[in-house]
């Protein structure tokens, strides 16, 4: 969310100009009764005034979901989830949340301070009812004007359905079909909102696109749906998430992200995930089940995923690339931290279909406390993928001796000309390294954070600059209490 200091300055300067666009009419606070059935799906679709085809699309997803069971192959230990007890629609409440920072959990404020988040922004993040929403509306509007001159569409999914139905209809579900998996089906049936972006042929998007600049983004965390299309020869870098800890009253999250890159297009998708991880005993954290997939449809297209996963009690997430176009390229760079009772089962799938396709996987898992961290990755080379190349590097770092790191690679090669390399290492932060740092005057926590940042460096450098600096601080905060 705090994507770049530069843009933040812009936010601030713009908000001083005052608010000139008027506010959307009060949405009546309304919540669907708990449970999930066709009725509820219809209710959601009606609330959002969606066209018939989208309702049918949701219903198809719901029917598929009803026939599916929650997957249990991941190395995750979790209590059964009662899907009929959850609520699947609740209109944003305008007056919910604390009135001022005085009412906010001091622990949360302390973390904001450590992350160096500006005061004004802390209010917005903590959910204090301030003009922050107004800021983002005016900024979003300004940026949108700039973008639309280039023909770039960047808006909420809801708006895209209204304003660009043909594009949405053409691409929605083409990378992650409704019945792809249990959580994707659930998302397809009840998705709340999300982002939509379209970059036209030959256009290089001049700024990092970020959800920060999208209206009401803060409240769409639970069943978010993102669709990004980069047309021929275009380029876009997209930032998702927020280094500040995000709380949500909904424990269950199931997002879907679909990326489409046409010929010679490039998409760089960066995520910092810091949903509430629960307390030291793991109580109350977010369950994060995410389906992210990109299709490199055109020749020489490229999709690059970079993720820094520090939050959530449960992370289940495999950002993947389907390399259909000849000579297309997929990349996956990941840092996942589990501390206390957190569990992460994350990795990627690289599906090589086109000739000369290449993929790179670099995963850094850090486990501390009683955290469990699993890398799970599939590299598949289809028969037509002549001369496909993959290089995978999976490194695990353990802090303490009550945590766990696991590596589960699946390699399926059906073309003999392919070259697939897999390297994995597991190490502990050594006493020698800690002592060396302490002997130079660093305290134990700073020493660990320095060593961990060094361990993750190759991934962090893939993040946009300002994001990387914040991610570094975030790693330190996430590992607090892991030594000493």
């Amino acid at each position, binding site marked *: 969310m705090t994507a770049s200091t530069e843009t933040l300055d812009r936010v601030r300067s713009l908000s001083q100009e005052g608010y000139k666009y008027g506010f959307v009419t009060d949405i009546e606070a309304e919540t669907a009764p708990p449970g999930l059935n066709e009725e509820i799906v219809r209710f959601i679709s009606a609330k959002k005034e969606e066209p018939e085809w989208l309702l049918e699309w949701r219903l198809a997803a719901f029917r598929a979901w009803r026939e599916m069971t929650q997957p249990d192959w991941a190395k995750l230990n979790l209590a059964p989830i009662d899907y009929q007890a959850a609520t699947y629609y609740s209109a944003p409440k305008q007056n919910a949340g604390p009135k001022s920072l005085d009412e906010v959990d001091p622990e949360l404020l302390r973390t904001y301070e450590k992350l160096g988040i500006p005061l004004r922004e802390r209010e917005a993040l903590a959910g204090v009812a301030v003009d922050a929403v107004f800021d983002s509306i005016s900024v979003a509007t300004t940026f949108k004007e700039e973008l639309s001159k280039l023909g770039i569409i960047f808006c909420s999914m809801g708006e895209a359905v209204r304003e660009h139905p043909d594009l949405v209809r053409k691409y929605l579900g083409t990378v992650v079909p409704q019945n792809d998996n249990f959580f994707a089906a659930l998302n397809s049936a009840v998705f709340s909102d999300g982002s939509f972006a379209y970059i036209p042929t030959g256009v290089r998007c001049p700024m990092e696109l970020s959800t920060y600049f999208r209206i009401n983004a803060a409240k769409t965390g639970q069943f978010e749906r993102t669709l990004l299309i980069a047309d021929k020869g275009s380029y876009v870098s997209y930032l998702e998430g927020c280094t500040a800890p995000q709380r949500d009253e909904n424990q269950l999250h199931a997002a879907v992200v679909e990326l489409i890159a046409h010929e010679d297009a490039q998409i760089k998708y960066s995520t910092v995930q810091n949903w509430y991880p629960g307390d030291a005993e793991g109580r109350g954290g977010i369950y994060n089940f995410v389906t992210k997939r990109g299709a490199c449809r055109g020749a020489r297209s490229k999709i690059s995923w970079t993720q820094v996963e520090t939050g959530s009690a449960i992370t289940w997430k495999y950002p993947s690339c389907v390399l259909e176009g000849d000579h297309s390229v997929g990349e996956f760079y990941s840092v996942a931290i589990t501390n206390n009772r957190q569990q992460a089962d994350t990795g990627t799938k690289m599906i090589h279909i086109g000739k000369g396709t290449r993929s790179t996987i670099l995963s850094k898992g850090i486990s501390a406390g009683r955290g469990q961290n699993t890398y799970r990755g599939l590299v598949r080379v289809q028969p037509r993928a002549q001369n496909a190349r993959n290089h995978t590097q999976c490194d695990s770092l353990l802090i303490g001796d009550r945590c766990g790191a696991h590596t589960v690679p699946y390699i399926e090669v059906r073309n003999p000309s392919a070259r697939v390399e897999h390297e994995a290492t597991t190490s502990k932060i050594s006493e020698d390294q800690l*002592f*060396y740092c*302490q002997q130079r005057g*660093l305290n134990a926590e700073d020493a660990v954070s320095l060593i961990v940042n060094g*361990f993750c460096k190759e991934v962090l450098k893939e993040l946009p600059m300002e994001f990387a600096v914040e991610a570094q601080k975030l790693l330190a905060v996430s590992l607090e209490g892991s030594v000493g």
Partner: protein
Amino acid sequence: MLEIHDLHARLTDGREILRGIDLSVNAGEVHAIMGPNGSGKSTLAAVLAGRDGYEVNQGTVTYLGRDLLAMPADERAREGLFLAFQYPVEIPGVNNMYFLRTAINAQRRHRGEPELDAGQFLRIVRAKLKLLDIGEDLLQRAVNVGFSGGEKKRNEVFQMAMLEPRLAILDETDSGLDIDALKMVARGVNQQRAPDRAIVMITHYQRLLEYVEPDRVHVLQGGRIVQSGDKSLAMELERRGYGPVEDAA
């Protein structure tokens, strides 16, 4: 500055390595500690620096009037105790300059001084490099990663020069060095020499002492200091070896 009295230390398996060390180092002095392999020199340095894995079962150490053994390792460092490691440790991915700036600023905060920004830090770096006649090549690499043995030692001396400790302990910083590197180490030590600082050099070779004149030379053997003298003792050891010293003890 440093008063060690009847210091005994043992490993977790109970083996006693230091068996009654007495040593007194005053501000402004340079001491050399020599002794055969396995005699406990590095152990003494480790115990003074506060490394885990050793139990002090007897004796006291006073540093600048304070009970050194009661202080955690990082605090000792921030109070000006520096150890140049016999085997410097690699920290992958951590830029050498960044590491040093983090360390310096931790120490400055401790002393209530303002932190150095990147520009100020760089100016000091340049000045020290010039003084020691060290190239800039090591600075942008990860801490000790892929450094040659000599480069690691050079880096230790550079860190010492930057941190300006009150008490520096150099554990075989002269081992495995060519003559130019040896001179550089000597420059580093001589440049640190000051009335309010003390330096303890652990070494096997008289060679270093040709460039850095020690005030005192000690022989550590079997976990005790068995002989002390002026620099002529080092020359004598070079001629005779350690054997006869043990007899004399």
